[in-house]
């Protein structure tokens, strides 16, 4: 089947879909169908070519406005490329919708973990630390580390998925996605283990004075609470507050509620001179 397959799509059709994806992917994002309009706009140049019959084109147009949501950097271009290959091979709308629905969830998980949570957190914390010391290379470095690798990864994904075509599903099913996600998860956890205490700042300036009798003489002994805590476990307070925030999120507190609580704790503690 592959050898007999007729090439209906030219490189310019594919590039047109790719550029529409780049400039429009999440436009019109809404709660009802999320990225559906951006996805539809990107696949239309392909559908025009593969479905010359106006009625068939219209049907595909309507179908591709269904709910769609995935990571816009890792995931979206891969699905788009694979979809283009399936369209060229004459796949039915059920098949292509199945591809979209089947891949958008897992790829959103991979993309959000690798791109947002891991890669961005690393470059952003390095860039921010540089910026805070007054070095303009901080934000410039971040922009370069976004501009070039992001674009390369998106371009590569789109054409790789297109060339893999129907083999893609088998490839992804072979455990590749779960291997990559596992590696990203491990790196993410190690990095967070080190980043969290280095960036969350919380210490107490509290001192506890007590009068004690030493060999019959009364003296005042001052106990520095922070020094005691450090002796037990360094960065104890940052770890505790991060764990508290995590625990609350797990109990379905919203991020906004957690922010309000953390702000209140910090503000009251700082204003009273207990923390900081």
């Amino acid at each position: 089947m592959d050898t007999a397959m007729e090439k209906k799509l030219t490189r310019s059709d594919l590039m047109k879909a790719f550029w529409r994806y780049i400039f429009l992917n999440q436009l019109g994002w809404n709660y009802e169908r999320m990225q559906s309009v951006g996805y539809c706009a990107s696949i239309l140049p392909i559908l025009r070519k593969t479905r010359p019959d106006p009625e068939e084109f219209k049907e595909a147009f309507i179908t591709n406005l269904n709910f769609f949501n995935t990571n816009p950097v890792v995931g979206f271009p891969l699905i788009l490329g694979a979809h283009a290959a399936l369209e060229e091979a004459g796949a039915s709308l059920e098949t292509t919708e199945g591809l979209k629905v089947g891949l958008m969830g897992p790829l959103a998980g991979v993309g959000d973990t690798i791109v947002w949570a891991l890669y961005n957190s690393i470059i952003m914390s390095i860039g921010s630390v540089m910026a805070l010391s007054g070095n303009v290379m901080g934000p410039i470095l971040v922009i370069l580390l976004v501009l070039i690798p992001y674009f390369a990864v998106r371009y590569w994904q789109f054409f790789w998925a297109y060339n893999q075509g129907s083999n893609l599903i088998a490839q992804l099913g072979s455990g590749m996605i779960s291997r990559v996600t596992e590696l990203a998860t491990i790196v993410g956890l190690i990095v967070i283990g080190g980043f969290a205490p280095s960036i969350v700042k919380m210490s107490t300036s509290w001192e506890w004075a007590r009068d004690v009798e030493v060999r019959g003489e009364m003296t005042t002994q001052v106990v520095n609470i922070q020094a005691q805590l450090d002796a037990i476990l360094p960065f104890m307070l940052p770890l505790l507050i991060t764990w508290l925030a995590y625990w609350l999120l797990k109990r379905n507190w919203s991020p906004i509620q957690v922010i309000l609580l953390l702000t209140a704790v910090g503000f009251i503690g700082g204003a009273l001179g207990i923390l900081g």
Partner: protein
Amino acid sequence: MLTALLLALWAYLCIYDILGPVFFLGFRPLIAGFGAGLIVGDVQTGMLIGGTLELMALGVYTYGGATIPDFTVGAILGTFFGKEGGFEVGISLAIPAALLLTQVDILQRFLNFFFVHRADAYAEAGDEKGFMRMMVWTSHLIWGLSRAIPVFLAVAYGQPAVVAVSNFFENNPWFNQGISVAGGILPALGFAMLLKILPVSTYPAFLLIGFVLFAYLKMPLVGIAIAGVAIGLVYQQLKYRGQEA
């Protein structure tokens, strides 16, 4: 007035960037603040405000489309007000601005229903041209204006508020102290959000390794990241030994 327009335009661009091109991650506070610093002619303040907010918001992203505080607008306004009133004034206006704007974000995500229903109508008519006209010219308006208008209004008419806030700061040093301690604690949220999307209970050991590298071995962050990749690779090599790659 020109500054207000330019900053509003910058806010629009920063939000558009994450809706499509993702060329410079303009919606992140570090970048938004840096750009605002260039516009107001005070890059140092832009980097201070942006960098501080960035560390607070590290790992805070709209996973699955959830609304988060709008640190983009926060960084832009914080930079503008921080230029005149100083860093503390800027940062203490940036955080409430970011929180207030979350309501606007939820509202505008609702209003975007309009586009998907217009799209249905174009699809029924098989009208690709009309649909693309909407996508290119109008589909970003609600999203962009929901940031640009508040920025414009705050910059054009917010001056008296800044004077009041900076006077208040001078008379109440404890308030300052409270804000700076809260700023140090807030990054805990970003890490908590990251932990929530990662399977912590399956791999607790890796968190501990990262902590030991930093807290006891004093390893810099890039070193921890490289060590993380190495440990992950070794783990997978051992785990999948005997299986094909």
